[in-house]
C-alpha cells in the first residue's frame, strides 16, 4: 500500500511569548515544528505500513527551511520525503494552496491513501485536505481518530460533534487525522543521522508540467485579505492580589451577586 502524508511546518505555539504591554504575541523567536495533527497522520501511516506493508512518503510545501520538518518525519520512519518549494507557491489561500499541492502530488506518485492533519494550528482552516481530495477526485473522510484497512476500503473512526462515527471509505481516499489515543512515536536516532545526509527531491513550479501559474499563490487566490487589526481589547476588571483565599472568595461572591450573575 502506498501512503502519502502531507505535512506543514508551523511556529511552535508553546514558544510564542505574550507581550503584556502591547497585548500581542511575539512570534519572532518561535521555533518551527511539524504541525501536531500532521504528526498524528504520520503515526497512523507508519502503523498501517507496519501492519500491511507498503511505503510511506511525506510531502511538504513550504520555504527551504521546511526541510527540517521533513527530516523529522524521515527520522520517525517515513521512507521518502519530498519538498515542494517555490516563491510562486507562497501567500496562497486554501484554493491556490490545494492546487499547488495537487500538482505536486501528481508529480510525486500514485497513492492509495493520502493523509493530512485535520487542520494546521497556524491557520486552522481545515480546508486544504478536502480541497486536495476534490482536485484529485478521491473520496474523503475528515477528523479521523483511527483507520483500518478492509480490502479496497478503509474503515475510519470519525470524530463527530456529539458522537463518533465509523465510516467505510473507498480507496483511493484522502483522510484528515485528529488527535489519536496514542502520541506520535519519537524520532529514531540512527534515522536522525541518516536524515541529515539524505538527498531529497525539491519540486519547484517549473518541474510541474502543465501547471497554471495564474492559479498559484496570491495571484491564484480567490480570498483577498483586506485588513488586519488588533482584536478589540476586553479591558481588565477587578484583580484581587495578596489577599487570603477566604477574603478573595467573599469578594468574588459579592461581585457575582451584585452583577446579578448568580
Amino acid at each position, binding site marked *: 500500500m502506498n501512503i502519502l502524508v502531507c505535512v506543514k511546518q508551523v511556529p511552535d505555539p508553546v514558544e510564542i511569548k505574550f507581550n503584556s504591554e502591547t497585548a500581542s504575541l511575539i512570534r519572532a523567536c518561535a521555533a518551527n515544528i511539524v504541525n501536531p495533527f500532521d504528526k498524528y497522520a504520520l503515526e497512523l501511516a507508519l502503523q498501517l505500513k507496519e501492519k500491511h506493508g507498503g511505503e510511506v512518503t511525506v510531502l511538504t510545501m513550504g520555504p527551504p527551511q521546511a526541510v527540517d520538518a521533513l527530516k523529522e518525519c524521515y527520522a520517525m520512519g517515513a521512507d521518502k520525503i519530498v519538498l515542494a518549494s517555490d516563491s510562486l507557491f507562497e501567500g496562497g489561500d486554501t484554493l491556490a494552496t490545494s492546487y499547488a499541492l495537487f500538482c505536486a502530488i501528481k508529480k510525486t506518485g500514485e497513492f492509495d491513501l493520502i493523509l493530512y492533519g485535520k487542520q494546521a494550528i497556524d491557520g486552522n482552516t481545515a480546508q486544504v485536505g478536502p480541497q486536495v481530495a476534490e482536485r484529485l477526485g478521491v*473520496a474523503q473522510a475528515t477528523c479521523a481518530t483511527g483507520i483500518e484497512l478492509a480490502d479496497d476500503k478503509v474503515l475510519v473512526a470519525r470524530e463527530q460533534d456529539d458522537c463518533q462515527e465509523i465510516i467505510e471509505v473507498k480507496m483511493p481516499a484522502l483522510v484528515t487525522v485528529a488527535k489519536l489515543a496514542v502520541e506520535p512515536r519519537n524520532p529514531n536516532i540512527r534515522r536522525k543521522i541518516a536524515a541529515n545526509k539524505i538527498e531529497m527531491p525539491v519540486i519547484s513550479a517549473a518541474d510541474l508540467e502543465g501547471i497554471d501559474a495564474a492559479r498559484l499563490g496570491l495571484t491564484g487566490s480567490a*480570498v483577498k485579505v*483586506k485588513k488586519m487589526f488588533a482584536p478589540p481589547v*476586553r479591558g481588565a476588571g477587578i484583580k484581587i492580589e495578596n489577599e487570603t483565599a477566604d477574603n478573595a*472568595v467573599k469578594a*468574588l461572591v459579592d461581585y457575582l451577586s451584585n452583577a446579578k*450573575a448568580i
Partner: protein
Amino acid sequence: MGRENSKNVWVFIEVYDNKIRNVSLELLGQGRVIADQLGEKLVGVVIGDNIAGLANEVIAYGAETAIVVSGNEYKDYSTDGFANALTALVKKYAPSVLLIGATRNGKDLAPRVAGRLETGLIADCTDIEVNSEDRLVEWTKPAGNMMSTSICPDSSPQMGTVRSNVFKKPAPDYNRAGEIVAEDIGTKADDIRTKIVEIIKTVQGETVNLEEAEIIVSGGRGMKGPENFAILKELADILGGSVGASRAAVDADWMPYAHQVGQTGKTVKPKIYLACGISGAIQHLAGMSSSDLIIAINKDPEAPIFNVADFGIVGDLFEVVPLLTKEFRRIKNG
C-alpha cells in the same frame, strides 16, 4: 464561478436527528441581515430524507425561500452526496453568498464545494457584514494574534463557515409566508464512496454541551493532573454548569477533547466563564472572550488571562475553588 448575475444569500441548513442544528438557525438570523443589506432574498437549503416539515422552520426563522432536496441517498450525511446536491443547486441558481455552519460535517462539505466551484471560502468567521460601497461581503476571523477581514471579490458564491454561538438565533415567526421549492437532484449510489457503518454515542454517559452551557468552569495546565478536575466538576455541579479545559489540559490527556475551549476546540459564550489555572493564550481567548463575565483564578499575576478577566484572583486555585464551592453550596441551601 463568476460573479455575473449571482443573487441571493443562501444558508446550508444542517439536519441532525431530524432537527435543524442551532448554528443553521443562527446563520438564518445573520443571513437575513446580509440579504437585507444587499436587497436580496434569503434562501435556506435543506438536504435530507423525510425532511419536508423542516422547510416551514426555515421560513419561520427568516428565509423567503426554502429549497428542499429529498431522497433516501441523503438520509445520512456523505461528502459525495451532499457536495453533489449543493453544487448542482448553486450552479442552477447562482447565489451571491453561501453560509455554512462550522460543524464537523459543515467543515467537511464547505471546502469540497468551494473547491469544485473554484471560489473562495473563509473559515470560522466571527463577523460577516456587507460593505455598502462595493457590496462585497466582508468576513472577519481571528488570524493568529490579530483579526483579519477578507473579501472574495472575483468569484461566486462568496462562502464562509461560522461556528455556533457567534450569531444570535432569531425568534421564529410561524406566520411568515414563504416559498418552498422541491428540487429533484439524485445522486447515484455508486457515486457515494463513503458509508456510515456505526454511530457510537459519547461513552462517558454524559453529553458535553459546552456550547449551550450558561456557566463553564474551565481548567488548564495549573490543574496539575487529571484527578484535580474533580474539584472543578464539584463547583460546576453546584452552579449547574459544565467543565471546560484548555488545550494544554487536553493535550496532556487530563480531559477529553470534547471539553476543549479555544481556537482548536469549542467557541463558548456562557454567562459566567471561570478560568482556573489557565494562562490565557490567545488561542484560548479566541474561544471564550465573548462570555458575559470572565472570572480568572491563577497563581501568576502576569498571566494574560487577567487582561480579559472581569474579576481576577491571584492565588492558589486549590485553595480558592473548594472555598467557592463551599460558599455556593451554603448560598444554595439558604
